[in-house]
């Protein structure tokens, strides 16, 4: 077990990532999601929260993603399908978590299997949607700044209108 020490002398123990390498491929992701959604908030100590977040990231990059890539890169379509179902769910909920496998999913779009195809498209759509959301959030921030500048008289009406137009196009 991996031990994390709390300031008050207590501990949190999490299963060692080496053991997870023997798990079914979708399980490490489920584990990461479970700890993030259910357990993290119960640890009062911010230091331990940070350390556990870091450990979960390690599990993701060292165990979960390589496991999925191995399956997606293989020829066993039953396993690929199972993995894609799981990735699809995660891509809808937490796209950043599974983003590293995007190139491997993109490769699968060209495969001639209906289910694999539709799942891959759905995953890519989730990734794109998430990217657009992120871009929009960034633009919104810039727009707010520009609005402030415009009201303060530091930005011309023409420049403001141009920025506003770009923002609305992206929002559409």
């Amino acid at each position, binding site marked *: 077990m991996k031990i994390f020490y709390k300031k008050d002398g207590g*501990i949190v*123990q999490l299963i060692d990532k080496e*053991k997870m390498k023997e798990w*079914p491929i979708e*399980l490490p992701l489920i584990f990461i999601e479970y700890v993030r959604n*259910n357990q993290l908030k119960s640890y009062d100590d911010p230091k331990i929260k940070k350390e556990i977040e870091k450990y979960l990231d390690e599990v993701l990059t060292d165990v979960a993603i390589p496991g999925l890539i191995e399956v997606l890169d293989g020829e066993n379509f039953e396993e690929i399908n199972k993995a894609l179902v799981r990735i699809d769910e995660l891509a809808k909920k937490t796209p950043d978590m599974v983003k590293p496998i995007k190139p491997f999913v993109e490769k699968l779009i060209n495969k001639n299997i209906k289910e694999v195809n539709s799942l891959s498209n759905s995953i890519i759509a989730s990734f794109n949607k998430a990217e657009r959301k992120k871009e929009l959030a960034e633009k919104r921030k810039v727009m707010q700044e520009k609005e402030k500048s415009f009201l303060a008289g530091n930005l011309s009406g023409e420049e403001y209108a141009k920025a506003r137009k770009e923002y609305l196009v992206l929002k559409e």
Partner: protein
Amino acid sequence: MIIVAIKTESKKWDIKEAKKLFQEYLEKGIKEEKKETKLPENTVKIDDLNRKQTLGRIYKLTDSIIEMIYKNGRPSIKLPSRTSGNIIWDEENDLLLLGQQIMEKQFHSLGSVADITRLMKVLEKVNELLLKDMHATKREIFYSAVQLFGDQKNSDKCIEDVATMLYTTRNSTHIVASAKGSCIGRLRIRDRNDIIDLEGLGSGGWTITPMLDNVEILESDAEFILVLEKDAAMIRLSEARFWRKYPCIILTAKGAADIATRMFLRRISKELKLPVFTLVDSDPYGHYIHSVYLRGSKRLSYESPFLATPDIKLLGVLTRDLEKYKIPNDCRIPMNQTDIKRTKEMLSEDFVKKNKAWETDLKLALNLKMKAEIQALSTFGFEFLTDQYIPEKLSTGDWI
């Protein structure tokens, strides 16, 4: 007149002695994590095997029988004797183990022909279970050949013989006992592909599965484990959500300790490196239950290294507690002849003689000729067990 029961906010104890013990166990556990238990040379070594390995042992055994048939036409099976004379207490590891006395069962002897036929039937069933990757209960094995076994006692004995014959644990043969124990508290596990939160299963907790090969510990922030003899005590602690105030994992086998509960306790205490406390009735049977968790039973001594949890502390109810907590006389029960006999038997065990505090407490029980159940503590109120008795003991280090 209206009587109102007012529930007051209970005090939170600083369980400093239990915390001290937790730090000791954690340090010791980290140091010993990679160290293997070395058993004395004059004892039988048993391995916990996976499905493939157990099948390998079955094939090796059947090959040797076939070889004997070809050689002289008189095959036999050799297995470690499980008689009390072959049970050794390993003082260093504090375990009851099987010595190296071997017995031989002849296929051609009238005295052992029935026994060996039953044994082969069980071996055949074990082989089938392993090949299909399934588990069966002892009762199912009995019903697989009722006429041959006659009584479940016979099939149960053969199941243990088969495990000994293959030099493995009973769990490795995929024959399991029915689920009996339950566990609750600060622990998250995986049972095949399901993540189970033992804090979120209502007041009943998680039923300890006998198929422990499917179970893995995922996460815990517990600092000790509390083993209860009785389900009634479990209900009390569960209703009080005891583990929220005092970070722990609570389990019970609802009476005598079954294999799955013992095995699970060993697993969680070893993997999580946590101290374990038992809370049993203050009577010889309660002390015996504690001893079985601690160093194994004589009947299953060949499996002790996989079932026993050495260094468990007996938290209560101690005989000296009857006076200390002034348990009223009408809540105490006079010992009968069987209790006295059992207490004397316990006192004659080497492992009790070596533990002076335990010996003193049993001698006090013999002097007082009194016993008491855990429930006797509720004479001071239903909350006394959870708000005073257990926390106070954990805080002062009042255990054996």
